[in-house]
């Protein structure tokens, strides 16, 4: 059933923006990002294991058996009827302003209420067909059986549509992103692992046909990576990548280990949403641009090949740099791109934390596990601690193809479900 639900959820990619008013309240991304930051700060502090979260992906039936869902759907229907009533009767006690509000609300609720009505009709139809089945007419029996099956399929579809309509969309879901990988504890081994993970995402991008442009790349000895960033662009890239943010842990006998001992190392992934048009401007006065040409006379006086550019955003102290290119101006453009993404996510994070405080929600209900995932080579398994899901065949996983995609889809489903629960909880207590 769970697998079926998974496929259905994937099918239901288009969600009508029914509850756009509420969407902003659910911004797990920023919470994830904040966690990543916290991890970066505490990098050396943790080695303890938080128990894997006992998470389960519910089926459509299970979700529909929840009281809170029915309560909410009833509430929507009542509100819809009330709105309709006051608009039709032309209640003189209501002023223009309120009427307009009600009219808007009506158009927002309409698609959902339509689905609910359809569902009720289908369910009634199903009951009638089932009644027919109890009679002893053989011809009728066969016909009713087909009818029943059709009904069940349609009901399932409608229920799925209702669920999809209720899952709040995230503002930044449609944006591109900047991927940032940083080696954590574990020295050379951590850097080697970071390189493997970076390559995995590079493959994942080409698997989905997304663009992958390396912006920063600080390599270490023996082919590892200290720190690297890349800009990833393409349909649904952010939506699929956002759950990768967090601390990834590797357990294996490193190539560099001579006595055959198993090591545990970590690396951190940050996913910074990068909308096509960033809605804020940077004052050039807030930037300090550093190049190798600052000393000496510059211009025709000097011939250099060092074209590295480093940009510091003075008010926040956020720094980005690029030295991949032989052209200084292209390095500057790349550094600027990273800087914008960093500033944007910092801003997003700030806004979200304000909003969360205002709503007195417990911070950290999402992305709560410290380590998000373990790659255990000795047991050839990958375990995602947030949903307690384990996959096997590490080599295939690191190819960044089907297996990573499967993990990503499960995470998506789990978070959609969580968002739905939060949504129902919030809306039933209003």
């Amino acid at each position, binding site marked *: 059933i769970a697998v079926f639900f998974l496929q259905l959820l994937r099918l239901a990619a288009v969600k009508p923006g029914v509850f756009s008013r509420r969407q902003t309240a659910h911004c797990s991304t920023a919470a994830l990002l904040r966690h990543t930051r916290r991890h970066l700060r505490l990098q050396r502090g943790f080695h303890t294991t938080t128990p894997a979260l006992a998470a389960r992906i519910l089926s459509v039936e299970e979700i529909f058996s929840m009281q809170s869902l029915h309560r909410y759907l009833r509430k929507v229907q009542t509100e819809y009827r009330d709105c309709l009533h006051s608009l039709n009767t032309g209640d003189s006690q209501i002023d223009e302003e309120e009427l307009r509000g009600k009219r808007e609300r009506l158009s927002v609720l309409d698609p959902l209420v339509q689905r609910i009505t359809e569902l009720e009709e289908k369910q009634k139809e199903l009951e009638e067909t089932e009644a027919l089945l109890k009679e002893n007419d053989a011809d009728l029996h066969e016909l009713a059986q087909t009818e029943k099956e059709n009904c069940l399929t349609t009901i399932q579809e409608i229920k799925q549509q209702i669920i999809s309509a209720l899952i709040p969309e995230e503002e930044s879901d449609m944006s591109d992103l900047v991927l940032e990988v940083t080696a954590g504890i574990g020295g050379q081994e951590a850097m080697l692992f970071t390189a493997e993970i970076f390559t995995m995402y590079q493959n994942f991008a080409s698997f989905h046909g997304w663009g992958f442009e390396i912006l920063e790349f600080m390599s270490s000895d023996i082919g590892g990576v200290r720190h690297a960033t890349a800009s990833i662009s393409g349909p649904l890239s952010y939506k699929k990548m956002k759950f990768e943010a967090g601390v990834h842990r590797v357990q294996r006998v490193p190539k560099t280990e001579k006595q055959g001992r198993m090591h545990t190392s970590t690396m951190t992934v940050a996913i910074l949403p990068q909308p096509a048009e960033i809605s804020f401007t940077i004052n050039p006065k807030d930037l300090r641009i550093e190049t190798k040409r600052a000393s000496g006379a510059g211009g025709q006086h000097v011939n250099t090949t060092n074209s590295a550019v480093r940009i510091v955003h003075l008010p926040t102290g956020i720094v980005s740099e690029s030295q991949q290119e032989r*052209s200084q*101006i292209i390095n500057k453009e790349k550094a600027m791109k990273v800087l914008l993404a960093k500033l944007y996510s910092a801003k997003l994070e700030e806004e979200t934390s304000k909003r969360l405080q205002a709503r007195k929600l417990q911070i950290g209900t999402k992305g709560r596990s410290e380590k998000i995932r373990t790659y255990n080579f000795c047991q050839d398994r990958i375990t995602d601690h947030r949903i307690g899901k384990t996959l096997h065949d590490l080599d295939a996983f690191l190819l960044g193809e089907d297996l990573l995609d499967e993990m990503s889809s499960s995470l998506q489903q789990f978070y959609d479900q969580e968002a739905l629960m939060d949504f129902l909880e919030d809306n039933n207590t209003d």
Partner: protein
Amino acid sequence: MVESDHCAKSSPFSTSQRFSMRLRCLFFFQALVRVPCRAVGGAVGPPIDGSVTVEQAVSLWAQHFQQQDISEPLLSSSYIIAHILGQKTLECIERSRLGDRLTEQQREMVWELCSKRLTRMPVQYVIEEWDFRDLTLKMKPPVFIPRPETEELVSLVLEDLQEQQKDKTRPALRCLEVGCGTGAISLSLLHSLPQLKAIALDKSQEAVCLTKENASRLGLDDRLNVHHLDVMTDEYLIVRDCGAVDVLVSNPPYLFTQDMESLQEEIVRFEDHAALDGGSDGMSVICQILALAPKLLTEEGRVYLEVDPRHPPMIKRLTEQRMIGLQYLETHCDLTNRTRFCVLQRRR
């Protein structure tokens, strides 16, 4: 002027950091090579047992360049070796390939090109190419190697031209470059503005040929005319053949003659002095360009110049004191905040 890897270490730029370890282990490979001091010009002999990995070659030459006081030793070695492996930078090379042994042919190339660098030949001439904005251009001594500041000059011109192109009723824009060198400025403009037509001049035959070669490599030769003309002496021909352009752009020689002595050896020995020396106040070619500009520009046509930071007030004074038919519009700074670019406009 020499930038050693020392400053690279203390600075935020960390390209060289990862090599510091390797440099420490270097005497391990030194056993593999003949001791360099007796070789002519300090050249390093190829390894005795004939095998060396990419990383080893990079470290070995970086250290040798440093010993010989060659500027940017690690970058030089990295760029040359990356080029031989068919890439622009070492970072572009797959990490796993860094430990691969160089083939005999590659090793010979590394030794040949790095030996050229030992003569202080600029890396851009050694590998015969460099990037300017989003173009890769062929470089050939003694044609002046474009500097990063000039990339910003192109940005300035592009911004203005893109603005003007929004007016669809305008006929195709035309641009003239004086002293084109490798063709970097004209080719970048043509590459970014598909409607633009350009004329480029240089008094050096080598520069004219190189600009033509770069233009045809980039498929931009149909919109570019290159003439072998000297702005100082061919005034009549220039006015007759190149006239009525919307933009006149130039990175003219602007160094003060007395500063020529203090330049890096790389520049003094390999680059065309005529592309650098602007006379006692660095203004001789600038003045000539400004004198010709009103005869070459369309109404409200503009001049964009890259200059020495001491020049903008001098140029401004010139336009105010003498009626040369140009109005000084603005001064722009480069990334290091030096007053590097002047924009002037033809008076109505």
